[in-house]
């Protein structure tokens, strides 16, 4: 809930706020392709999307984002207009993510490719784009392709992307219900990146997979 005075005034006088539980209102969350939460969309009265904000943001930043969107600033249309005249890979990545969150896979892939092809293919922006690209295969349950992509990233990139790719490989094996490979990959992750903040997560996963009865008993 918004308890900030500015937010109360904003949603009392400027914009209308609707709060929906995505697990309950599945028809609407599907219609607007809301897959990560929280997701907040700015809509016209007729329901057309202007743009969206995915993830948590401080109240002031949250409100400012929607004020900007209502003025045509930072929207997908605005970014596409800027990309027509600017060579800015961060901008390309932002556009790709906007397409991704809207469920437009082809649009997102085109812009992720542009990020990779318009700069150093092994820098951090390319790593982020490559991880996102592999993620499309994982979400589409094309696990073999996803594993190949994550493996390449793990070999070619330094942390964080090279490290994250190993975690994602383990997650893909878990989605494939391949317990032995999942455990082996998490173990390999801990061995290669013992100082990683994801070590605890990897250890928990291994413990759960090795002792499934203990977990279900709890």
């Amino acid at each position: 809930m918004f308890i900030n005075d500015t937010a109360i005034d904003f949603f009392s006088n400027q914009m209308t706020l609707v709060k929906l539980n995505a697990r309950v209102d599945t028809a609407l969350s599907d219609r607007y392709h809301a897959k990560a939460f929280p997701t907040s969309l700015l809509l016209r009265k007729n329901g057309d999307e202007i743009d969206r904000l995915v993830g948590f943001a401080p109240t002031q930043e949250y409100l400012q984002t929607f004020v900007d969107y209502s003025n045509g600033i930072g929207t997908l249309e605005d970014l596409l207009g800027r990309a027509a005249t600017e060579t800015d890979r961060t901008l390309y990545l932002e556009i790709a993510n906007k397409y991704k969150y809207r469920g437009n896979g082809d649009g997102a892939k085109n812009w992720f490719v542009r990020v990779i092809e318009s700069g150093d293919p092994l820098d951090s922006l390319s790593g982020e784009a490559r991880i996102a690209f592999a993620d499309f295969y994982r979400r589409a349950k094309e696990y073999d392709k996803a594993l190949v992509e994550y493996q390449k990233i793990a070999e070619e990139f330094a942390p964080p992307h090279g490290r994250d790719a190993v975690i994602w490989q383990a997650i893909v094996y878990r989605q494939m219900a391949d317990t032995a490979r999942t455990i082996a990959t998490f173990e390999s992750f801990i061995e290669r990146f013992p100082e990683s903040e994801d070590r605890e997560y990897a250890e928990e996963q291994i413990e759960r997979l090795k002792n499934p009865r203990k977990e279900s008993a709890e």
Partner: protein
Amino acid sequence: MRANIVLTLLLVTAVMAACTGEKASLVRPDGAAPYYTSLADAQQAATADQLIVLDFYTDT
């Protein structure tokens, strides 16, 4: 007796809402921003050029 009072209060609230045109899905929490729990109601209530912020959340 208590049930009658609650019923009467609910009825009065419903009648007042109907008179003011306020939608049943409008929630006005104390000390927090008002919000709707129905997009259709919000669309009906919004003025022609008023924009809507649709906030999807999960409780898990």
